[in-house]
């Protein structure tokens, strides 16, 4: 009996010792792939940062490292209103659009996730269709409409199209989060005497907070990064946002290319995105609902 059993045991042991080698090899290959990917993505960003910190005289020295560090490019773009005013526009329009979009989307997504109403499928379909619609095909008619009704080159003139394009995405993301919240919580709140509005405000919305944070980042990034509407629906610094304004940068003379200023401006407009992600990342913690039900 033991003689028969022994080889089996040995084989099992061999398999067991061989097993840890596989993850190690896989780990190494994964690490390599990751390093390459990260380098590939980060290199252009580094290049941009290096350009922004280069002294204007050494801009074209062909080095990826600023030999002479300087703030000249930054002080240049913050001198005068060519960049400052668009930056304020960007922040204002971005924040307002995000707040309105997320508030509306939270309510709409709750309805989509929890209620059955006629035309629900149609609503979701249409909103998804809007999200997929190429923005460029709408720019011309919107330009004309906005000029006709006096929205052209105003904050609302950008906020409205941003809402139209970000809402479907926001509703879709949020309704996925709402579906995760156990039904029983809502029933419990109902029996506890809460009205539909109280249920939403005190139970559902706090639990959907990670989802709301994620959606906020997505919407803000969409508004912040937008170029096509910003360039088409504005004409002056009254409403022009930072990415669009960068296209109007001029060099020292009309024959110099404002590469240093553009690099510095690009670094500046990247900062809010980084801050946003850092603030909200801590909120995007899964498991907010753990403990609600037996787990």
């Amino acid at each position: 009996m033991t003689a028969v059993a022994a080889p089996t045991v040995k084989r099992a042991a061999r398999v067991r010792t061989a097993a840890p080698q596989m993850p190690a090899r896989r780990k190494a290959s994964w690490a390599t792939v990751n390093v390459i990917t990260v380098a590939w993505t980060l290199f252009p960003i580094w290049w941009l940062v290096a350009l922004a910190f280069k002294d204007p005289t050494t801009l074209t020295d062909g080095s990826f490292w600023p030999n002479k560090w300087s703030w000249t490019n930054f002080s240049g773009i913050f001198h005068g209103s060519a960049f400052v005013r668009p930056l304020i526009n960007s922040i204002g329009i971005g924040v307002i659009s995000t707040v309105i979009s997320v508030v509306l989307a939270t309510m709409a997504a709750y309805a989509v996730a929890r209620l059955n109403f006629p035309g629900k499928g149609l609503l979701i379909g249409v909103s998804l269709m809007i999200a997929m619609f190429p923005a460029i095909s709408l720019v011309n008619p919107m330009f004309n409409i906005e000029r006709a009704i006096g929205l052209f080159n105003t904050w609302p003139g950008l906020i409205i199209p941003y809402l139209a394009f970000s809402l479907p995405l926001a509703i879709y993301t949020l309704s996925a989060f709402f579906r995760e919240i156990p039904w029983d919580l809502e029933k419990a709140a109902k029996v506890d005497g809460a009205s539909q509005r109280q249920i939403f405000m005190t139970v559902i919305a706090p639990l959907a907070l990670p989802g709301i944070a994620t959606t906020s980042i997505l919407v803000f990034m969409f508004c912040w990064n937008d170029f096509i509407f910003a360039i088409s629906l504005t004409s002056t610094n009254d409403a022009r946002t930072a990415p669009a304004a960068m296209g109007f940068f001029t060099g020292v003379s009309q024959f110099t290319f404002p590469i240093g200023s553009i690099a510095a401006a690009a670094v500046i407009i990247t900062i809010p995105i980084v801050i946003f992600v850092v603030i909200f990342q801590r909120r995007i913690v899964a498991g907010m609902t753990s403990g609600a039900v037996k787990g």
Partner: protein
Amino acid sequence: MATISLEHVTKRYPDGTEAVRDLNLDISDGEFIVFVGPSGCGKSTALNMIAGLEDISSGDLRIGGKVVNQLTPKDRDIAMVFQTYALYPHMTVRQNMAFPLKIAKVPQDEINRRVTEAAELLELTEHLDRKPANLSGGQRQRVAMGRAIVRNPQAFLMDEPLSNLDAKLRGQMRTSIARLQQRLKVTTVYVTHDQTEAMTLGDRIMVLRLGVMQQVGTPQELYDYPANLFVAGFIGSPSMNFMPGQLADGGLKWPLGDVSLPAEVVRRLEEDKAPRDVIVGIRPENFEDAELVEGAKRDQGSIMSVKPEVLESLGSDVLAYFPVPRPEASQVAELERVAAEVGTGDAPGSGSTFVARLSPATRARVANSFDLWFDTHKLHLFDAHTGRALGR
């Protein structure tokens, strides 16, 4: 505290299926009633209708004499405990328990007083500032109970509140729920699929099957006088043994040998116009090792010789599983229908195996024949076609 009464209450879904059909029940003030039945029998739907979480398709629901069909849950003044506990994960235990009071705009010092009181009652005081995620299953269950009792509601509704606990904790919590209810004297409707829970907790039990009420009564009534095959098979553990048989000349012919029935039983059967074909049921506890039965009691019963296949010793009892003659081919179909009806399927106690609960003093050995006594007064007879209990 209040009475709850259901009059012809029906739940019909848009596709025409009826989850609950024509339910009539009066629950008295302070009573502990248990709705029991297999899954899909409509017991939770019935509870949700009382809570106001589901609409009532037809019929009237009265709480404290007032028709509440159209009232929202918040106006019915009832508290509910869910199987999943449904604690608000972003709130502490204290906030969870205070939530219904806060919604009702109870003054803060009153809230504090009631929460502290409930926490003491449920031994949760030291956990008041923890979040549900950091509590054990039993503690979460108690928080859910706490959230219900702080309100001093008209009634407690409990939807399988112990199903998510392990067996030992379930036993403990069962006792504490019973004690709590006796202390608070609040009308309680308790839903479970577990007949042990139903038997131990309920003042009365309502057995449901496919949305239809089968029987309502005290645990002892249900055990002693099941109204039909379904209730007979559902109540009691291990469940009742069934076997087809025929009534003839004041006696019973069945594959386990002919049995002469007590005169009183025969008289009641005659009054009931019992058909010839019956299904005989006998509970495991109505068997005993013949050697251990003496005197007058021995004469009350009948004795057969059996050969146990399996003996399970539980310490206090021994369960003996023994084969019984397969019924005639024409009767097998009937028997299978019974097993399906009761939901025992191939479990011991149905088909061609019987189970007997014997005293641990028995000398029965596996595969050795011994004499088994059974109490003929305790035989249950059912109409083979309708499943209705005969001669009750």
